């Protein structure tokens, strides 16, 4: 595990020490977050990545004062989340998993009321609401009832709600869950722009690998309530190396090729029937040389594939499980194919 250093920032936006949260239900204790030690500098854009139930949201709920830690400490914007609750609340913006704006209300009314809640005068609140409505492209829907807005529009309104008081730290809990790919891409673009323009610290949780990869400067991978990796997406991936997959016509050739490949330094070789896979740093550059060697040795592969590592590979490497498998239901297409096969059989 590698840690960032933040020598360029004076005081960190978030510090946690041994942050722990247990839940007890039916006499069973679930350790949702276990001893989290973390430091996030001012102006960073950080993603918590992990499967459902990994402890991402529980961590966020502690950092936003919604629930107190069972043990350990956390401070946000220089204030302790327990003893300085009010100060933390004033300093942060929070966009939860649901809709911050009430469904019976009008979007603009909610923005104004939110401004008043953070101590802005009525005139300031109106002005700020108007500005956010324009910035977040909500002009056409701001004076409609929130329940009549589309999912993407509601999400933009929620983010506007979280920005009313220009928070020093903005928390987004699964901001793109439930959005279609187009709206998800728009939302990521919006978060990136907000971060670049405001210089605020942005902390988000996600179980979308692509989102953490595309959006965050720094990815904190969590599983079973523990932090298992903390680095930039690029470094997490490059540390793992590329995956070179070679296909053969029969398992014996595959086994012979695997034996040759075992000589490649700092690599990992796996054989699965008539296929061999090699995990090695800079594999895409080595592949020409590898093929030449294998051909010279009399075991040229019939199929070759080189894959750059994904964050899912990183997760698989760290936990032995694929992040995709842990949560993504099979697509309807796959299901129907299986059913058809069964019927045919």
């Amino acid at each position, binding site marked *: 595990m590698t840690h960032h250093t933040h020598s360029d920032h004076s005081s960190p936006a978030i510090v946690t020490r041994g942050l722990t949260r247990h839940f007890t239900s039916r006499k069973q204790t679930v350790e949702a977050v276990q001893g989290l030690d973390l430091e996030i500098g001012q102006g960073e854009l950080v993603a918590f990545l992990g499967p459902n139930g990994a402890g991402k949201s529980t961590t966020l709920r502690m950092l936003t004062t919604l629930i107190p830690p069972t043990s350990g400490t956390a401070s946000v914007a220089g204030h302790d989340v327990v003893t300085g609750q009010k100060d933390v609340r004033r300093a*942060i913006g929070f966009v939860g998993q649901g809709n911050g704006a009430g*469904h*019976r209300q009008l979007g603009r009314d909610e923005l104004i009321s939110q401004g*008043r*809640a*953070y101590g802005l005068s009525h005139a300031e609140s109106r002005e700020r609401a108007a500005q956010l409505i324009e910035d977040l492209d909500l002009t056409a829907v701001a004076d409609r009832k929130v329940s009549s807005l589309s999912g993407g529009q509601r999400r933009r309104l929620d983010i506007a709600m979280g920005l009313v008081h220009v928070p020093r730290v903005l928390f987004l809990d699964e901001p793109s869950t439930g959005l279609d790919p187009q709206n998800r891409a728009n939302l990521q673009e919006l978060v990136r722009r907000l971060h670049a323009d405001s210089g605020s610290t942005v902390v988000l949780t996600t179980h979308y690998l692509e989102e953490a990869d595309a959006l965050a400067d720094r990815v904190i991978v969590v599983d079973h309530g523990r932090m298992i990796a903390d680095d930039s997406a690029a470094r997490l991936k490059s540390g793992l190396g590329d995956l070179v997959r070679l296909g053969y016509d029969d398992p014996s050739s595959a086994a012979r090729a695997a034996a040759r490949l075992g000589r490649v330094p700092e690599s990992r070789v796996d054989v699965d029937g008539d296929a061999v896979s090699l995990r090695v740093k800079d594999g895409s550059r080595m592949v020409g040389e590898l093929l030449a060697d294998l051909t010279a040795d009399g075991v040229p592969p019939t199929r070759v594939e080189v894959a750059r590592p994904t964050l899912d590979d990183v997760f698989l490497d760290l936990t032995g499980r694929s992040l995709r498998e842990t949560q993504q239901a099979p697509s309807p297409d796959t299901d129907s194919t299986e059913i058809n096969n069964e019927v045919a059989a």
Partner: protein
Amino acid sequence: MSTFVNDTVNVMTRELKPVWREPMAVVFAMIQPLVFLGLFAPLLPDMATGGSALQWFVPGIVAMTALMGASFTGSSLMEEMQSGSHERQLVSPIGRPALLVGRALKEVVPMLMQVAIIVAVVTPFSFDLHLDGVLVAALLLSLFSVGVGALSFALALASKGQDWMFWTVQQTLLFPTLLTAGVLLPIDGAPRWLEVVSALNPMTYVVDATRVLFAGTYPSDVVAQGFAGAAVVAALGLVVGVRAMRRSS
């Protein structure tokens, strides 16, 4: 303190926005009491003193409307707990007491609108309007509504967004409260146990006081007991409600 007042006003203003925008919802919410008024009142014999049955029945229906409206109101908080806007408010610097008190105070507005509608509907019939008494009764019912509203919000918070729990408890308590308070039929001459239950129900005193006030009379003991009953409900509601709100996460 001024933060509390500002926060409370902000919460109340926000809660009232949908009321002003869709005032018809206030009318729909009182369909049940209006049905009772239309279908039950004609069955009642005129009073022994010679007055119209409406004179006795209308104040009870007014108190019933207040109880029903305010006891339903927790469902709006339940909606916000499910949608996420309650969570958003919990993360904001608004104090927990203001989140509860602002909501409970808002109950006064739809209640007053409903009282005005009922009085306007029955006055053309054989109902004798005593405006001064009605206004004092409105004050009494305001206090009562704040208390019942606060209890309803506390129930919503305790139900943690589970609709069935909220509605089961609310429906289970609603009619026994109404009936033992003597809203639909007088409790006089009831079996001893029912009299005891009725005497323990604070709403009984609110209904009795509303009746004398609607008749334009001011027997100080009945009026004082009415305000005491309403104050007990309000105090209980606010204490329980604020405590539930502090525990909400």
